[in-house]
């Protein structure tokens, strides 16, 4: 369960208070694919290269074989997705979507990803910085054949850059950088 704590005001002024979520999550699934359109393959571990991306993945900087690679984005080195969204899709829309179908690399549990934009956090031994929320696209409906564009608005995952590389494994802990 998400525990939201109010912390002391920041440097902007005494009246300015920041909501800082306290959480610890886990890595549930890991997926990569080398090229646009191809199925995501489940991996027991993935290797993150600082400043570039995931070894073997389509959006690794220098590889550029993803559907959106013609739109370069330095902050799209690794993408995350909440497993809770898959549960909600089933509960609210009766849509079965597997962790291999949302096309993000890391499926997490217990992490409020949408709160993390602009923040740094540990993913196993790697350090990431969240750059922006992912947005859904019609491309994913084309691939899955499932009407998931609308249900994924505002909960389509998180784009991140890799500050410190390393190997991420299923079961690794995800926690705030402090």
């Amino acid at each position: 369960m998400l525990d939201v704590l109010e912390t002391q005001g920041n440097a902007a002024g005494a009246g300015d208070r920041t909501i800082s979520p306290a959480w610890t999550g886990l890595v549930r699934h890991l997926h990569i694919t080398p090229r646009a359109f191809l199925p995501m393959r489940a991996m027991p571990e993935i290797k993150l290269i600082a400043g570039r991306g995931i070894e073997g993945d389509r959006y690794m900087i220098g590889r550029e074989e993803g559907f959106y690679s013609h739109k370069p984005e330095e902050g799209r080195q690794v993408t995350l997705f909440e497993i809770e969204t898959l549960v909600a899709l089933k509960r609210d829309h009766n849509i079965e979507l597997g962790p291999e179908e949302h096309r993000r690399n890391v499926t997490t549990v217990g992490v409020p990803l949408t709160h993390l934009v602009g923040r740094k956090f540990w993913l196993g031994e790697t350090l990431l910085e969240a750059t922006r929320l992912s947005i859904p696209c019609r491309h994913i409906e084309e691939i899955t054949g499932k009407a998931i564009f609308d249900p994924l608005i505002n909960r389509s995952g998180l784009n991140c850059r890799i500050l410190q590389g390393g190997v991420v494994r299923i079961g690794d802990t995800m926690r705030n950088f402090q």
Partner: protein
Amino acid sequence: MKAAPITTIKTIVEKIDDGGPDVKVFSLVDPDRWELPPFRPGAHIDLHLPGKVVRTYSLCNDPAENSRYVVAVKREPSGRGGSIRLHDDVRQGDTIGVSLPRGGLQLDNKVSRFTFVAGGIGVTPFLSAAAYLMRTGGADFRLHLMVRGEPPVAGLLAPLLQKGHVVIHNTVTAARPEVASLIGRTPSDEMVGCCGPQGMIEDFEQATRGWPDELVHIERFVPLARPLDPNEKPYTLVLSRSRLEVAVTAGQTMLAALIDAGIDIPASCCGGICGSCKVDWLQGEPVHRDRVLSPAERGKSLMVCVAGSATDRLILDL
């Protein structure tokens, strides 16, 4: 140079087998032998050939074989040129872009018997269906193949012939059987499919008149025209700055028409939420379908990925 978007699945021609008279069988794989997008029995893919030639072929292999697309192509000297290019120009090791698989048969419903009727190279969509049914073993099936002389893709037919699933009707040595005589009379737990020349399709349609839609599958060499939404009308985009006119056909997106015309439009979600493809409009009456622009913004801008036009001409600030 600006990178082009990736619009097809990159495949390599792994091998080209002889499929009998004027037929070649192409095996397409990912360059790293990665899994390919899944397909249903009887599905087809588009092959994107040099010169912007796009041709559609049925997948012949078992859908369980997830790292290979197999298509059988008959060389048609009087065709539109796609089969000639494949036969004459494509070599092992060449790269071919293909579409995501589409269509196919629903074989997982409660049907105990399948009957397929095919003419010549029209056998291809039923090869993957037959491979699926052979493997799963849940239903009986028979494939009636009408040919003039030697049947195509003998190598792919061999295991089906061995198991008694195929009946070959050589119309050189015997009269062509009536399609109606090959399929059951009482549509209950039998599903039937047909692929072949137009005359055979018409006979099949006649024979299955009154059957439930879900028990009848017709695979055509030439796709039927998509039924148009009566509310969708063609219109013309007038690009004020570049002094161009772009025709948007009924049912086409404004974005697709602009891209086809060579206009460089940034786009991302293609669903009207990300705001990437915002363009200002100057005159006409846009139909806004986005979920990103405010009412005030809509007075000036539109999202070309989802917007339409209520007027015959719409002037854009492009």
